[in-house]
Protein backbone atom coordinates (compact mmCIF):
# COMPACT_ATOMS: atom_id res chain seq x y z
CA UNK A 1 0.00 0.00 0.00
CA UNK A 2 2.60 2.52 0.97
CA UNK A 3 2.37 5.73 2.83
CA UNK A 4 -0.85 7.76 2.58
CA UNK A 5 -0.47 11.10 0.92
CA UNK A 6 -0.77 13.85 3.48
CA UNK A 7 -3.62 16.23 2.66
CA UNK A 8 -4.07 19.72 4.00
CA UNK A 9 -6.51 19.50 6.90
CA UNK A 10 -7.65 23.12 6.84
CA UNK A 11 -8.48 25.10 3.74
CA UNK A 12 -7.94 28.82 3.13
CA UNK A 13 -11.26 29.63 4.81
CA UNK A 14 -10.26 27.67 7.88
CA UNK A 15 -12.76 24.95 7.08
CA UNK A 16 -11.93 21.31 7.58
CA UNK A 17 -11.66 18.50 5.03
CA UNK A 18 -15.34 17.63 5.48
CA UNK A 19 -16.38 21.28 5.36
CA UNK A 20 -16.93 21.65 9.09
CA UNK A 21 -16.00 24.67 11.18
CA UNK A 22 -13.47 24.19 13.95
CA UNK A 23 -16.15 23.78 16.64
CA UNK A 24 -18.68 21.78 14.66
CA UNK A 25 -19.83 18.25 15.51
CA UNK A 26 -20.18 15.58 12.85
CA UNK A 27 -23.78 14.47 12.19
CA UNK A 28 -25.02 12.37 15.08
CA UNK A 29 -28.00 10.02 15.19
CA UNK A 30 -29.21 8.08 18.22
CA UNK A 31 -31.76 5.31 18.54
CA UNK A 32 -32.86 3.61 21.76
CA UNK A 33 -34.13 0.08 22.36
CA UNK A 34 -33.36 -1.52 19.02
CA UNK A 35 -32.45 -5.00 20.29
CA UNK A 36 -35.03 -7.48 21.55
CA UNK A 37 -33.16 -9.76 23.93
CA UNK A 38 -30.91 -7.25 25.68
CA UNK A 39 -32.39 -5.52 28.74
CA UNK A 40 -31.37 -2.19 27.24
CA UNK A 41 -29.80 -1.14 23.96
CA UNK A 42 -28.94 1.85 21.80
CA UNK A 43 -27.44 2.53 18.39
CA UNK A 44 -25.35 5.53 17.41
CA UNK A 45 -24.18 6.92 14.10
CA UNK A 46 -21.59 9.65 14.54
CA UNK A 47 -19.77 10.66 11.41
CA UNK A 48 -19.27 7.29 9.75
CA UNK A 49 -19.12 5.53 13.12
CA UNK A 50 -21.80 2.88 13.52
CA UNK A 51 -21.83 1.49 17.02
CA UNK A 52 -24.24 -0.74 18.95
CA UNK A 53 -24.40 -0.80 22.73
CA UNK A 54 -26.31 -3.38 24.77
CA UNK A 55 -26.84 -3.87 28.48
CA UNK A 56 -27.78 -6.98 30.41
CA UNK A 57 -28.58 -6.54 34.05
CA UNK A 58 -28.77 -6.35 36.85
CA UNK A 59 -28.43 -10.10 36.72
CA UNK A 60 -27.00 -12.93 38.73
CA UNK A 61 -23.21 -12.86 39.03
CA UNK A 62 -21.51 -15.71 37.15
CA UNK A 63 -18.98 -16.83 38.34
CA UNK A 64 -20.06 -16.12 41.90
CA UNK A 65 -16.61 -15.14 43.10
CA UNK A 66 -16.56 -11.90 41.12
CA UNK A 67 -19.57 -10.58 43.04
CA UNK A 68 -19.17 -7.67 45.46
CA UNK A 69 -21.02 -7.75 48.77
CA UNK A 70 -22.27 -4.18 48.76
CA UNK A 71 -22.91 -3.33 45.12
CA UNK A 72 -23.18 -4.63 41.56
CA UNK A 73 -20.09 -5.51 39.56
CA UNK A 74 -19.99 -3.65 36.25
CA UNK A 75 -18.48 -5.48 33.31
CA UNK A 76 -17.70 -3.74 30.08
CA UNK A 77 -16.53 -5.00 26.72
CA UNK A 78 -15.48 -2.70 23.91
CA UNK A 79 -14.85 -4.59 20.73
CA UNK A 80 -14.37 -3.75 17.05
CA UNK A 81 -15.85 -5.97 14.36
CA UNK A 82 -13.23 -7.34 11.95
CA UNK A 83 -14.84 -5.46 9.07
CA UNK A 84 -15.11 -2.17 10.93
CA UNK A 85 -11.73 -0.75 9.93
CA UNK A 86 -9.88 -0.11 6.65
CA UNK A 87 -7.61 -3.12 7.19
CA UNK A 88 -9.43 -6.18 8.53
CA UNK A 89 -8.94 -6.41 12.23
CA UNK A 90 -8.45 -9.77 13.92
CA UNK A 91 -11.46 -10.66 16.07
CA UNK A 92 -9.25 -11.46 19.08
CA UNK A 93 -9.30 -8.62 21.64
CA UNK A 94 -6.29 -6.36 21.15
CA UNK A 95 -4.43 -4.51 23.91
CA UNK A 96 -6.14 -1.35 22.74
CA UNK A 97 -9.59 -2.92 23.12
CA UNK A 98 -8.67 -4.14 26.60
CA UNK A 99 -7.52 -0.67 27.62
CA UNK A 100 -10.61 0.98 26.14
CA UNK A 101 -12.90 -1.55 27.85
CA UNK A 102 -11.35 -0.40 31.13
CA UNK A 103 -11.52 3.36 30.59
CA UNK A 104 -15.05 3.12 29.21
CA UNK A 105 -16.18 1.16 32.25
CA UNK A 106 -14.53 3.79 34.45
CA UNK A 107 -16.52 6.52 32.71
CA UNK A 108 -19.92 4.84 33.05
CA UNK A 109 -19.58 3.19 36.45
CA UNK A 110 -19.49 6.50 38.38
CA UNK A 111 -22.94 7.28 36.96
CA UNK A 112 -24.50 3.92 37.81
CA UNK A 113 -26.10 3.61 41.24
CA UNK A 114 -24.69 0.13 41.61
CA UNK A 115 -25.26 0.06 45.38
CA UNK A 116 -28.88 -0.86 44.62
CA UNK A 117 -27.85 -4.30 43.38
CA UNK A 118 -25.36 -6.00 45.71
CA UNK A 119 -23.97 -9.31 44.46
CA UNK A 120 -25.35 -8.80 40.95
CA UNK A 121 -23.64 -7.84 37.67
CA UNK A 122 -24.42 -5.20 35.09
CA UNK A 123 -22.93 -6.05 31.70
CA UNK A 124 -22.22 -3.42 29.06
CA UNK A 125 -21.35 -4.58 25.56
CA UNK A 126 -20.16 -2.15 22.91
CA UNK A 127 -19.62 -3.36 19.36
CA UNK A 128 -18.09 -1.07 16.77
CA UNK A 129 -19.60 -2.06 13.45
CA UNK A 130 -17.90 0.68 11.50
CA UNK A 131 -15.10 2.87 12.84
CA UNK A 132 -14.47 6.51 11.95
CA UNK A 133 -12.45 8.04 14.82
CA UNK A 134 -14.01 8.79 18.18
CA UNK A 135 -15.34 5.27 18.69
CA UNK A 136 -14.82 5.20 22.45
CA UNK A 137 -16.76 8.44 22.86
CA UNK A 138 -19.60 7.34 20.61
CA UNK A 139 -19.63 4.01 22.42
CA UNK A 140 -19.99 5.74 25.80
CA UNK A 141 -22.80 7.97 24.52
CA UNK A 142 -24.70 4.93 23.25
CA UNK A 143 -23.94 2.76 26.31
CA UNK A 144 -25.37 5.47 28.57
CA UNK A 145 -28.65 5.27 26.71
CA UNK A 146 -28.59 1.49 26.79
CA UNK A 147 -28.18 1.60 30.60
CA UNK A 148 -31.10 4.01 30.93
CA UNK A 149 -33.15 1.88 28.50
CA UNK A 150 -32.53 -1.14 30.73
CA UNK A 151 -34.09 0.74 33.64
CA UNK A 152 -30.83 0.79 35.59
CA UNK A 153 -30.80 3.66 38.10
CA UNK A 154 -28.21 6.30 37.19
CA UNK A 155 -27.25 9.68 38.61
CA UNK A 156 -27.41 11.06 35.09
CA UNK A 157 -26.50 10.20 31.52
CA UNK A 158 -22.87 10.31 30.37
CA UNK A 159 -22.07 12.08 27.11
CA UNK A 160 -18.70 11.85 25.38
CA UNK A 161 -16.85 13.65 22.62
CA UNK A 162 -13.27 14.23 21.53
CA UNK A 163 -11.49 17.47 20.77
CA UNK A 164 -8.04 17.78 19.21
CA UNK A 165 -5.60 19.88 17.29
CA UNK A 166 -5.19 20.06 13.56
CA UNK A 167 -2.56 22.19 11.83
CA UNK A 168 -2.09 24.22 14.97
CA UNK A 169 -5.80 24.90 15.53
CA UNK A 170 -7.83 23.39 18.35
CA UNK A 171 -10.85 21.60 16.85
CA UNK A 172 -13.86 19.59 17.98
CA UNK A 173 -14.70 15.98 17.07
CA UNK A 174 -11.82 14.68 14.96
CA UNK A 175 -12.65 12.76 11.82
CA UNK A 176 -10.62 9.72 10.78
CA UNK A 177 -8.07 11.62 8.70
CA UNK A 178 -7.74 14.34 11.35
CA UNK A 179 -7.05 11.67 13.95
CA UNK A 180 -4.37 10.07 11.78
CA UNK A 181 -2.64 13.23 10.59
CA UNK A 182 -3.53 15.72 13.30
CA UNK A 183 -1.46 16.99 16.23
CA UNK A 184 -3.54 15.89 19.21
CA UNK A 185 -6.56 13.82 20.22
CA UNK A 186 -8.43 14.39 23.48
CA UNK A 187 -11.44 12.13 24.15
CA UNK A 188 -13.61 13.25 27.10
CA UNK A 189 -16.66 11.75 28.83
CA UNK A 190 -18.69 14.27 30.81
CA UNK A 191 -21.75 14.40 33.07
CA UNK A 192 -23.14 17.90 32.43
CA UNK A 193 -25.47 18.18 35.45
CA UNK A 194 -22.81 17.18 37.95
CA UNK A 195 -20.12 18.96 35.93
CA UNK A 196 -17.69 16.07 36.21
CA UNK A 197 -15.39 14.19 33.87
CA UNK A 198 -15.35 10.38 33.89
CA UNK A 199 -12.98 9.73 30.98
CA UNK A 200 -10.07 11.83 29.88
CA UNK A 201 -7.23 10.70 27.66
CA UNK A 202 -4.88 12.54 25.42
CA UNK A 203 -2.17 11.79 22.93
CA UNK A 204 -0.27 14.22 20.71
CA UNK A 205 1.17 17.59 21.57
CA UNK A 206 -0.65 20.42 23.33
CA UNK A 207 0.46 23.45 25.30
CA UNK A 208 -1.33 24.08 28.57
CA UNK A 209 -3.38 26.83 26.93
CA UNK A 210 -4.35 24.66 23.98
CA UNK A 211 -5.34 21.90 26.38
CA UNK A 212 -7.70 24.20 28.29
CA UNK A 213 -9.33 25.32 25.03
CA UNK A 214 -9.72 21.76 23.83
CA UNK A 215 -11.19 20.61 27.15
CA UNK A 216 -13.76 23.42 27.10
CA UNK A 217 -14.68 22.61 23.49
CA UNK A 218 -15.19 18.96 24.39
CA UNK A 219 -17.27 19.56 27.53
CA UNK A 220 -19.50 22.09 25.71
CA UNK A 221 -20.08 19.56 22.95
CA UNK A 222 -20.94 16.96 25.59
CA UNK A 223 -23.71 19.25 26.84
CA UNK A 224 -25.17 19.34 23.33
CA UNK A 225 -24.86 15.58 22.97
CA UNK A 226 -26.58 15.16 26.34
CA UNK A 227 -29.61 17.04 24.98
CA UNK A 228 -29.63 14.69 21.98
CA UNK A 229 -29.53 11.69 24.32
CA UNK A 230 -32.53 12.98 26.26
CA UNK A 231 -34.37 13.57 23.01
CA UNK A 232 -33.64 10.00 21.86
CA UNK A 233 -35.05 8.64 25.12
CA UNK A 234 -38.19 10.71 24.75
CA UNK A 235 -38.63 9.49 21.17
CA UNK A 236 -38.49 5.89 22.32
CA UNK A 237 -40.86 6.35 25.25
CA UNK A 238 -43.15 8.83 23.62
CA UNK A 239 -46.03 9.35 25.96
CA UNK A 240 -49.48 10.23 24.83
CA UNK A 241 -50.75 12.29 27.69
CA UNK A 242 -54.34 12.48 28.67
CA UNK A 243 -55.10 16.20 28.76
CA UNK A 244 -57.12 15.80 31.93
CA UNK A 245 -54.17 14.39 33.80
CA UNK A 246 -51.84 17.33 33.20
CA UNK A 247 -51.19 19.70 36.04
CA UNK A 248 -49.54 23.06 35.89
CA UNK A 249 -45.98 23.45 37.03
CA UNK A 250 -46.10 25.10 40.42
CA UNK A 251 -43.64 27.73 41.58
CA UNK A 252 -44.12 28.58 45.20
CA UNK A 253 -41.88 30.89 47.17
CA UNK A 254 -42.15 30.30 50.86
Amino acid at each position, binding site marked *: *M*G*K*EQKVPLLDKNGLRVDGRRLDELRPLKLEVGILDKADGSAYIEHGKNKILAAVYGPREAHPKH*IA*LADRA*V*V*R*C*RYHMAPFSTDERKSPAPS*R*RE*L*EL*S*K*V*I*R*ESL*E*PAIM*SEYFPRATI*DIIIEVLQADAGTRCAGITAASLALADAGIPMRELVAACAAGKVEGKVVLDLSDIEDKQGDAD*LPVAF*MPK*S*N*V*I*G*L*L*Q*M*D*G*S*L*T*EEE*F*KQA*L*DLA*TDACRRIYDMQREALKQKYHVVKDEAEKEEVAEVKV
Partner: protein
Amino acid sequence: MSVTHQLSPVAKLEQKTVHDLIVKGKRLDERNALDYRPLTIMLGTIEKANGSAQVYLGKTKVLAGVKIQTGTPFPDTPDEGILTVNAEFVPMASPDFEAGPPGEDSIELARVVDRGIRESKAIDLKKLCVQPGKKVFVVFVDIYVLDHDGNLIDAAGMAALGALISSKMQEFEVKNDELVFKDKIMPLPIRDYPVPITSVKINGSIVLDPCLEEEQVTSCRLTVTTGKDDRICAMQKGGLGVFTPDEVKQIVSTAISKSRDLRQRILSKVN
Protein backbone atom coordinates in the same frame (compact mmCIF):
# COMPACT_ATOMS: atom_id res chain seq x y z
CA MET B 1 -14.23 -7.72 29.48
CA SER B 2 -13.19 -5.14 31.99
CA VAL B 3 -14.61 -6.00 35.41
CA THR B 4 -14.97 -3.84 38.54
CA HIS B 5 -11.99 -4.68 40.69
CA GLN B 6 -12.34 -6.60 43.93
CA LEU B 7 -10.78 -4.28 46.44
CA SER B 8 -8.17 -5.52 48.84
CA PRO B 9 -9.90 -4.96 52.13
CA VAL B 10 -8.31 -1.92 53.71
CA ALA B 11 -8.92 -1.73 57.39
CA LYS B 12 -11.41 1.03 58.07
CA LEU B 13 -9.04 2.48 60.64
CA GLU B 14 -6.27 2.84 58.04
CA GLN B 15 -8.68 4.45 55.60
CA LYS B 16 -9.76 6.92 58.22
CA THR B 17 -6.16 7.72 59.11
CA VAL B 18 -5.29 8.61 55.52
CA HIS B 19 -8.46 10.71 55.15
CA ASP B 20 -7.92 12.61 58.38
CA LEU B 21 -4.31 13.42 57.58
CA ILE B 22 -5.16 14.64 54.09
CA VAL B 23 -7.84 16.94 55.49
CA LYS B 24 -5.18 18.47 57.70
CA GLY B 25 -2.94 18.88 54.65
CA LYS B 26 -0.56 16.17 55.77
CA ARG B 27 0.13 12.68 54.55
CA LEU B 28 1.16 9.35 56.05
CA ASP B 29 4.88 9.98 55.66
CA GLU B 30 4.75 13.66 56.56
CA ARG B 31 4.85 14.69 52.90
CA ASN B 32 3.06 17.71 51.52
CA ALA B 33 0.39 17.28 48.89
CA LEU B 34 2.77 17.90 46.01
CA ASP B 35 5.88 16.13 47.32
CA TYR B 36 7.34 13.08 45.65
CA ARG B 37 8.84 10.35 47.75
CA PRO B 38 12.62 9.89 47.79
CA LEU B 39 13.67 9.03 44.25
CA THR B 40 16.68 6.96 43.29
CA ILE B 41 17.55 6.29 39.66
CA MET B 42 20.33 3.93 38.58
CA LEU B 43 21.17 3.62 34.92
CA GLY B 44 22.80 0.77 33.05
CA THR B 45 22.38 -1.92 35.73
CA ILE B 46 21.65 -4.66 33.17
CA GLU B 47 24.73 -4.82 30.92
CA LYS B 48 23.26 -7.31 28.43
CA ALA B 49 20.45 -4.92 27.61
CA ASN B 50 21.07 -2.01 25.25
CA GLY B 51 19.88 0.23 28.04
CA SER B 52 18.37 -0.15 31.48
CA ALA B 53 17.27 1.81 34.48
CA GLN B 54 16.17 1.01 37.98
CA VAL B 55 13.87 3.42 39.76
CA TYR B 56 13.12 3.39 43.48
CA LEU B 57 10.27 5.79 44.25
CA GLY B 58 9.73 5.46 47.97
CA LYS B 59 9.38 1.69 48.35
CA THR B 60 8.13 1.18 44.79
CA LYS B 61 10.75 -0.50 42.63
CA VAL B 62 10.57 -0.66 38.84
CA LEU B 63 13.19 -1.90 36.42
CA ALA B 64 13.12 -1.15 32.70
CA GLY B 65 15.25 -2.74 30.04
CA VAL B 66 15.70 -1.78 26.39
CA LYS B 67 16.62 -4.20 23.65
CA ILE B 68 17.22 -3.00 20.11
CA GLN B 69 16.86 -5.53 17.31
CA THR B 70 16.12 -5.49 13.62
CA GLY B 71 12.64 -6.06 12.25
CA THR B 72 10.22 -5.21 9.46
CA PRO B 73 8.67 -1.76 9.42
CA PHE B 74 4.91 -1.15 9.48
CA PRO B 75 3.44 -0.63 5.97
CA ASP B 76 2.28 2.91 6.67
CA THR B 77 5.64 4.04 8.12
CA PRO B 78 8.19 2.25 5.94
CA ASP B 79 11.10 4.52 6.82
CA GLU B 80 10.66 4.58 10.59
CA GLY B 81 11.92 2.36 13.36
CA ILE B 82 9.43 0.78 15.73
CA LEU B 83 8.82 1.38 19.42
CA THR B 84 7.09 -1.24 21.51
CA VAL B 85 6.46 -1.01 25.24
CA ASN B 86 5.46 -3.88 27.46
CA ALA B 87 4.95 -4.12 31.20
CA GLU B 88 5.01 -7.07 33.58
CA PHE B 89 3.43 -6.89 37.01
CA VAL B 90 5.69 -9.57 38.39
CA PRO B 91 3.95 -11.69 41.07
CA MET B 92 6.71 -10.97 43.60
CA ALA B 93 5.82 -7.28 43.52
CA SER B 94 2.55 -7.59 45.35
CA PRO B 95 0.35 -10.19 47.05
CA ASP B 96 -2.34 -9.11 44.58
CA PHE B 97 -0.36 -9.83 41.41
CA GLU B 98 -0.95 -13.21 39.83
CA ALA B 99 1.13 -14.96 37.20
CA GLY B 100 -0.44 -15.13 33.77
CA PRO B 101 -1.15 -12.97 30.75
CA PRO B 102 -1.07 -9.20 31.33
CA GLY B 103 -4.17 -7.88 33.04
CA GLU B 104 -5.82 -4.58 32.14
CA ASP B 105 -3.77 -2.62 34.69
CA SER B 106 -0.43 -3.65 33.25
CA ILE B 107 -1.70 -3.14 29.70
CA GLU B 108 -2.92 0.33 30.62
CA LEU B 109 0.40 1.20 32.24
CA ALA B 110 2.40 0.00 29.23
CA ARG B 111 0.20 1.94 26.82
CA VAL B 112 0.35 5.15 28.89
CA VAL B 113 4.14 4.99 29.10
CA ASP B 114 4.27 4.16 25.38
CA ARG B 115 2.13 7.18 24.52
CA GLY B 116 4.40 9.49 26.47
CA ILE B 117 7.46 8.33 24.56
CA ARG B 118 5.76 8.02 21.19
CA GLU B 119 3.79 11.27 21.13
CA SER B 120 6.69 13.37 22.37
CA LYS B 121 8.68 11.81 19.53
CA ALA B 122 11.40 11.16 22.10
CA ILE B 123 13.08 8.59 19.87
CA ASP B 124 14.02 9.83 16.42
CA LEU B 125 12.56 6.79 14.68
CA LYS B 126 13.64 7.96 11.26
CA LYS B 127 17.26 7.48 12.30
CA LEU B 128 16.50 3.79 12.91
CA CYS B 129 15.74 2.95 9.30
CA VAL B 130 18.07 0.49 7.58
CA GLN B 131 16.22 -0.16 4.33
CA PRO B 132 12.88 1.61 3.80
CA GLY B 133 10.06 -0.89 3.61
CA LYS B 134 12.36 -3.79 4.41
CA LYS B 135 14.41 -3.42 7.54
CA VAL B 136 14.36 -1.11 10.53
CA PHE B 137 15.42 -1.24 14.17
CA VAL B 138 12.83 -2.14 16.77
CA VAL B 139 13.20 -0.64 20.23
CA PHE B 140 11.72 -3.00 22.83
CA VAL B 141 11.05 -1.34 26.17
CA ASP B 142 10.18 -3.87 28.84
CA ILE B 143 9.03 -2.61 32.18
CA TYR B 144 9.30 -4.87 35.18
CA VAL B 145 7.41 -3.91 38.31
CA LEU B 146 9.32 -5.49 41.17
CA ASP B 147 7.78 -3.93 44.26
CA HIS B 148 4.39 -2.21 44.34
CA ASP B 149 4.03 0.58 46.87
CA GLY B 150 1.97 2.88 44.71
CA ASN B 151 2.33 5.16 41.69
CA LEU B 152 3.60 2.52 39.30
CA ILE B 153 2.91 4.67 36.24
CA ASP B 154 5.31 7.44 37.22
CA ALA B 155 7.99 5.02 38.38
CA ALA B 156 7.63 3.00 35.17
CA GLY B 157 7.66 6.10 32.98
CA MET B 158 10.85 7.33 34.63
CA ALA B 159 12.46 3.90 34.41
CA ALA B 160 11.59 3.67 30.71
CA LEU B 161 13.00 7.12 30.10
CA GLY B 162 16.16 6.30 32.02
CA ALA B 163 16.60 3.07 30.08
CA LEU B 164 16.17 4.88 26.78
CA ILE B 165 18.59 7.69 27.49
CA SER B 166 21.20 5.21 28.68
CA SER B 167 20.69 2.98 25.62
CA LYS B 168 23.58 2.36 23.33
CA MET B 169 23.69 0.62 19.99
CA GLN B 170 26.30 -0.10 17.39
CA GLU B 171 26.66 2.45 14.68
CA PHE B 172 25.55 1.07 11.35
CA GLU B 173 25.47 1.76 7.66
CA VAL B 174 23.91 0.17 4.61
CA LYS B 175 26.38 -1.24 2.04
CA ASN B 176 25.03 -2.96 -1.07
CA ASP B 177 21.61 -3.30 0.55
CA GLU B 178 23.16 -5.07 3.49
CA LEU B 179 23.20 -3.89 7.11
CA VAL B 180 26.77 -3.45 8.22
CA PHE B 181 27.71 -2.63 11.80
CA LYS B 182 30.61 -0.30 12.39
CA ASP B 183 33.03 -0.56 15.21
CA LYS B 184 31.67 2.38 17.15
CA ILE B 185 28.98 2.64 19.79
CA MET B 186 26.37 5.35 19.58
CA PRO B 187 23.56 6.37 21.88
CA LEU B 188 19.98 5.69 20.85
CA PRO B 189 18.89 8.90 19.11
CA ILE B 190 16.77 10.55 21.85
CA ARG B 191 15.53 14.10 21.51
CA ASP B 192 12.87 14.55 24.21
CA TYR B 193 12.44 13.44 27.82
CA PRO B 194 8.78 12.75 28.62
CA VAL B 195 7.97 12.45 32.32
CA PRO B 196 4.58 11.26 33.63
CA ILE B 197 3.19 12.97 36.73
CA THR B 198 0.25 11.28 38.44
CA SER B 199 -2.18 13.11 40.70
CA VAL B 200 -4.86 11.35 42.71
CA LYS B 201 -8.05 12.49 44.40
CA ILE B 202 -8.56 11.34 47.99
CA ASN B 203 -11.73 12.51 49.73
CA GLY B 204 -11.80 15.60 47.54
CA SER B 205 -8.15 16.54 47.97
CA ILE B 206 -5.55 16.22 45.23
CA VAL B 207 -2.12 14.80 46.03
CA LEU B 208 0.83 13.66 43.91
CA ASP B 209 2.76 10.38 43.95
CA PRO B 210 0.44 8.28 46.09
CA CYS B 211 1.95 5.46 48.13
CA LEU B 212 0.04 2.17 48.15
CA GLU B 213 -2.08 2.95 51.21
CA GLU B 214 -3.11 6.23 49.62
CA GLU B 215 -3.88 4.49 46.33
CA GLN B 216 -6.21 2.09 48.11
CA VAL B 217 -8.40 5.00 49.23
CA THR B 218 -8.05 6.97 46.00
CA SER B 219 -11.21 7.64 44.03
CA CYS B 220 -9.46 8.48 40.75
CA ARG B 221 -6.13 9.44 39.21
CA LEU B 222 -4.96 11.64 36.38
CA THR B 223 -1.57 11.11 34.76
CA VAL B 224 -0.12 13.97 32.71
CA THR B 225 3.04 13.32 30.67
CA THR B 226 5.01 16.36 29.58
CA GLY B 227 8.00 16.82 27.31
CA LYS B 228 10.98 19.10 27.72
CA ASP B 229 9.31 22.23 26.33
CA ASP B 230 6.24 21.98 28.61
CA ARG B 231 4.19 20.33 25.90
CA ILE B 232 1.64 17.79 27.13
CA CYS B 233 2.04 14.61 25.14
CA ALA B 234 -0.16 12.13 26.97
CA MET B 235 -2.89 12.07 29.59
CA GLN B 236 -4.88 9.31 31.23
CA LYS B 237 -7.64 9.38 33.79
CA GLY B 238 -8.17 6.17 35.74
CA GLY B 239 -10.38 4.91 38.57
CA LEU B 240 -14.07 5.07 39.40
CA GLY B 241 -14.13 8.64 40.68
CA VAL B 242 -14.57 11.81 38.62
CA PHE B 243 -12.84 15.19 38.26
CA THR B 244 -14.37 18.60 37.64
CA PRO B 245 -12.94 20.50 34.66
CA ASP B 246 -11.33 22.97 37.08
CA GLU B 247 -9.62 20.19 38.99
CA VAL B 248 -8.27 18.83 35.70
CA LYS B 249 -6.87 22.21 34.68
CA GLN B 250 -5.23 22.65 38.08
CA ILE B 251 -3.72 19.16 37.94
CA VAL B 252 -2.29 19.85 34.47
CA SER B 253 -0.68 23.06 35.67
CA THR B 254 0.95 21.36 38.62
CA ALA B 255 2.08 18.39 36.55
CA ILE B 256 3.83 20.58 34.00
CA SER B 257 5.93 22.32 36.61
CA LYS B 258 6.58 19.14 38.58
CA SER B 259 7.82 17.29 35.52
CA ARG B 260 10.54 19.90 35.06
CA ASP B 261 11.91 18.96 38.50
CA LEU B 262 11.91 15.27 37.85
CA ARG B 263 13.31 15.58 34.34
CA GLN B 264 16.26 17.49 35.79
CA ARG B 265 16.93 14.72 38.26
CA ILE B 266 16.77 11.99 35.61
CA LEU B 267 19.01 13.85 33.17
CA SER B 268 21.56 14.60 35.85
CA LYS B 269 22.22 10.88 36.01
CA VAL B 270 23.48 10.82 32.45
CA ASN B 271 26.90 12.23 31.80
